[in-house]
């Protein structure tokens, strides 16, 4: 479903814009007056279920073909669900030749912020490459910095980000990653990360046989980090989530980021607004975050937030696609992002009335 927000001077103008941009069938799902006397309208549009007709019944979980071997059945079921989710098989011939208007439309379809969209299209054109994917990758490459986290180095990692970004899962993934390279790690929950998060982190620490500690305040954390440094142990620090755009919350946090030998890593969820994520990342950067991990990439079909995050200026360390610890940290390159943008373009485009 497409959900968009429109600002207008009055209701009549707002409705006209909704109709023009999203079509006659769009549904208004919310509206309110703004401070300056205008209106804000939120509208939704979706194709409905026509596109997924002729689907076999999944409900009872009964095998739909008694004769087929189990592996085939599961493969079919998976294909079915993939179809239900609107994913299409990757088509090798999908990449066409470069066209600036097409690229602009593609990026807009993904709801990438306008400023970035224009910039990327311009750079892609200047690259002189005739292949769409390569031209886009080249443009992304100009603005994207990739810096995977090397858990073997001797610095503590401090995870910071808004509530619900998935910091605890990221901490677990980083620890698992380090353990795979036989590196000693310690998991630390700082600043009362919340009972649930602390318990989750602790159980996880037990499972990978890593020590676990809770640091009540900045001094305690500084001491733990220093101890880890001396013993050549990578400290991974989970913190309580907060909105980094909020000045007060930022001030409360900054004491942690100032601890010596600590690297601040921003964690943001890909589920959100592509413009807003730029603000959040900017705020994280002022807090001292040196790089970024983007979570929940599996939950989005429009990749605008990934484009925002990748081109934000803050080096991108990793992207995660699953809350499961076993599914690790992926690295996004300009080419893989360009491919993903083009591959999912057809899906993302389906719903938008251009």
């Amino acid at each position, binding site marked *: *479903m497409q959900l968009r927000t429109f600002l207008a001077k009055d209701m009549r103008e707002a409705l006209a814009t909704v109709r023009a941009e999203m079509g006659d069938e769009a549904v208004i799902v919310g509206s309110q007056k703004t401070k300056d006397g205008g209106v804000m309208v*939120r509208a939704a549009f979706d194709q409905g*279920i026509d596109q997924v007709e002729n689907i076999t019944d999944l409900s009872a979980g009964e095998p739909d073909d008694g004769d087929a071997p189990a592996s085939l059945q599961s493969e079919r079921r998976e294909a079915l669900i993939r179809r239900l*989710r609107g994913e299409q098989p990757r088509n090798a011939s999908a990449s066409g030749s470069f066209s600036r208007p097409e690229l602009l439309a593609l990026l807009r379809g993904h709801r990438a912020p306008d400023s970035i969209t224009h910039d990327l299209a311009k750079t892609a054109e200047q690259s002189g490459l005739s292949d769409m994917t390569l031209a886009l990758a080249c443009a992304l490459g100009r603005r994207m910095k990739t810096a995977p986290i090397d858990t073997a180095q001797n610095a503590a990692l401090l995870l910071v980000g808004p509530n619900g970004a998935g910091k605890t*899962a990221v901490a677990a993934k980083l620890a698992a990653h380090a353990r795979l390279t036989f590196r000693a790690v310690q998991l630390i929950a700082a600043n009362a990360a919340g*009972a649930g998060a602390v318990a989750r982190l602790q159980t996880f620490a037990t499972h990978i046989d890593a020590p676990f500690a809770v640091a009540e305040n900045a001094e305690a954390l500084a001491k733990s980090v220093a101890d880890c440094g001396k013993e050549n142990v990578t400290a991974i620090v989970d913190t309580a989530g907060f909105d980094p755009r909020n000045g007060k919350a930022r001030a409360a946090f900054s004491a942690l980021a100032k601890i010596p030998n600590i690297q601040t890593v921003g964690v943001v969820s890909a*589920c959100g607004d592509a413009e807003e994520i730029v603000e959040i990342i900017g705020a994280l950067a002022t807090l001292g975050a040196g790089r970024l991990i983007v979570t929940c990439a*599996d939950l989005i079909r429009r990749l605008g937030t990934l484009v925002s995050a990748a081109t934000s200026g803050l080096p991108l360390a990793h992207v995660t696609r699953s809350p499961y*610890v076993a599914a690790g940290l992926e690295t996004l390159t300009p080419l893989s992002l360009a491919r993903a943008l083009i591959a999912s373009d057809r899906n993302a485009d389906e719903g938008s009335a251009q």
Partner: protein
Amino acid sequence: MNVPLPRLTAIGSGKGGTGKTLISLALAQALARQGERVLLCDADLGLSNIAVHAGLADGGDLAGVLAGRCSVDSAVVAVNGGAAQGGFDLLAAPAGSGALANAGLEAAMCLVGLLRAARAYDRIVLDLSAGVGAESMALAAAADETIAVLTPDPAALTDAYAFTKLLLCATRSRAPEFVVNLAASETEARRTSDSFVSTCRAFLKFEPRLLGIVLRDASAAEAVRRQQALAAGSAASRAIADIAGTLHVRVTPQKFAANDVR
């Protein structure tokens, strides 16, 4: 006559953090108070955390059940006395173990089969994981009733819609009912509900039914922080008890009918 019990009630939502676990726990307790024998199953096969929410050291051995190492009745732990004594039973994986992270679709279907055979229960509440992953959707589709948890957050609307749409597709006809959680006021909850209903009506040609409203309740958040059960008198727990009442009457006639046949 074959009584179609236990009844599987799945609690889902596309988005994370909408309150599925909080509602599942309170619902299990409230249904038990109505006299049902209830099993709460943590179907968040990745980072499960029901046991943490409930303040239990041990959540049972769901992984063992799925691996065929033990039966459902030997793998559950009793909460508040257990299903036999006015509480309910819990079946979960060790908190945060990720033990079932790669369990996959087959495991989800296998779980449904095992739960359906657990005749010691009248009701099994499934706390699904966030998202519209294949496993969650298969579990939601296999349940007898599915409840989507919606919040006023616009992202929750989009995600609950996706959840509803996929469920409709998977079952051809059965769409979820829904609960609005975490609204600041009745008005905000109604507005959220109206948006969701009108979106579904417009694009899916179907009107989901509002089962109940659970407002944002400071004592609920506090209870979770302290890993305690919701206080029985709290607004959230009363709202969830009402929802339990609605769900309960659906199984009651079946039970009576079964007893009357003699």
